[in-house]
């Protein structure tokens, strides 16, 4: 069972993000981490491989040198191989072109299953996974909370989360699944893994290796264009309702009714 896991190095939740004067760009504090949902995807891949007893897990990312960290974390957790889509022309694209490049890379790999995260913390769109599946012409199931693989029948049975309930679906391999919280508890990379990750060679693919024209990559190939970045509106300072609790509660209800008009 060969499993490809899409991983992304993203700014940490605590990282400061500033909008550049004029809204032309954002500046992100240098605090990065493996995307939370992607760590669930790596964990699941490792468990499936262990359960099936053969095959390899390959972590793949599209990004800059910084993204190598995501690959190393994946390898430290137990992934066998790591691939970086590495070309300046690939950077700055939207979900559509990112997925196109990833699909192009995966097309030439041997895979039975692709796992990715529910969404990436930076753009939170959850679009890349389904787009990769579309470009590869394989089915996809998002927000998986339980995955059972039958390697004999070459199928997966997946429990996915929907608002207020669950759905259980079955799909033939190969299939792309996105990981939702609740799927598993990702392992902490063991020291031996970290050491192995330092030594593991990262395979690099540029535009030529991906057989992609520059017009179909990065900013040039993106379908979306950012007009400007801006800050969300700020909330006015909190009004603390003072006094003895019964008085404060009465005052609060009055404010919600008469000032905020929300009840």
């Amino acid at each position: 069972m060969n499993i490809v896991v899409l991983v992304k190095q993203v700014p940490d939740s605590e990282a400061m993000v500033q909008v550049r004067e004029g809204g032309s760009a954002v500046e992100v504090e240098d605090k990065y981490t493996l995307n939370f949902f992607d760590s669930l995807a790596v964990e699941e891949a490792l468990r499936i491989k262990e359960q099936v007893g053969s095959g390899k897990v390959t972590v793949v990312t599209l990004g800059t040198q910084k993204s190598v960290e995501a690959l190393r974390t994946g390898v430290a957790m137990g992934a066998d191989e790591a691939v970086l889509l590495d070309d300046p022309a690939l950077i700055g694209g939207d979900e559509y072109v990112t997925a196109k490049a990833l699909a192009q890379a995966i097309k030439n790999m041997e895979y039975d299953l692709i796992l990715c995260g529910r969404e990436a913390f930076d753009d939170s769109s959850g679009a890349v996974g389904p787009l990769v599946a579309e470009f590869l012409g394989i089915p996809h199931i998002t927000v998986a909370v339980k995955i059972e693989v039958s390697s004999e029948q070459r199928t997966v049975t997946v429990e996915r989360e929907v608002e207020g309930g669950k759905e259980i679906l079955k799909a033939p391999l190969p299939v792309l699944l996105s990981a939702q919280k609740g799927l598993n508890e990702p392992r902490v990379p063991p020291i031996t893994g970290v050491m192995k990750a330092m030594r593991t060679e990262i395979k690099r693919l540029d535009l030529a290796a991906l057989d992609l024209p520059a017009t179909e990559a990065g900013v040039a190939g993106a379908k979306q264009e950012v007009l400007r970045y801006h800050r969300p509106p700020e909330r006015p300072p909190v009004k603390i309702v003072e006094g003895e609790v019964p008085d404060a509660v009465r005052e609060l209800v009055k404010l919600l009714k008469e000032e905020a008009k929300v009840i």
Partner: protein
Amino acid sequence: MSAEVWVFAEQRDGKLRKVTLELLGKGRELADKLGVKLAALLLGSGVSDLAGELTSYADNVYQWDDPLLERYNSDIYLQLISHLAGKETPQILLAGATFLAKDLFPRLAGRLDTGIAVDCLNLAIGDDNLLVATKPLFGGKVLADVVCRKGRPQIALVRPNTFPPPSLSGASKGEVHKLEVSIDPDQVKLEVLEVVRAAKERLDLTEAEIIVTGGRGLKEPKNFRLLEDLADVLGATVGATRAVVDSGWRPQDDQVGKSGKTVSPKLYFAIGLSGAIHHIMGMDTSNVVVAINKDPRAPIFQYADYGIVGDLFEVLPLLTEELKRELAKG
């Protein structure tokens, strides 16, 4: 150009989802600005009543009614919608940012070679009559206005509770187009085995207008009774922090935040929770936030409109009583 504005009419258990109506309201505004028609896409089994309902909002209702469509299957929905989009070439396609839409529409964007903006917080018509979609980045720390010049339709998935539901006054009388459900079975690889619905009388968190969320300050699962009581009075939905969910006090379905659900209600109560950034990212676009915490330095107060510094075990019963009294007055 007469290319229509489309709204995906998501329905569930025979009812239109609230966000669908919100988007029909906004969709009408966009369509009027562009001088084009508004259409609704309806897929399901036994949905002709809903189609009728939609004609009060949309000029055209495209209806696929077939037992095959009773349960959502992306392989089937994709074929039908992409086929019609190829024929009718709409310029804009809107849907709520629901689990279903997030599963379906990115892939549709790929099939139609167009862009998609997910979790939008605003929509407008800008230069060159392009749709300008405002979407959050970095958990809402930054917003980006994006356009899609290089593909049609321009697809946007919008967070529920972003736009008000439309009023029915001046209702248009739309036309229902019953479409044939012809699909290529070779392209249907997924099989939906089972759909389990938790028996819930409350709206899902993502659509709720009022949410009361409890954190670790509630001390024990049984104390969530206090929140349930408050929620009953307000017709609200109960939420939880990750700390609470990971302790097994509440189901995963209830979690608000970065690794849970993103909510945007009219009124959000944050009770006995500290306001960690991961939590804030899931509720920061709530209209009015009320925090109740015994620690005056809890970060949640920086993200709240109103606050009471006090012991929740003292505040909650009084608050529930007071609201009950106040709401009984009408």
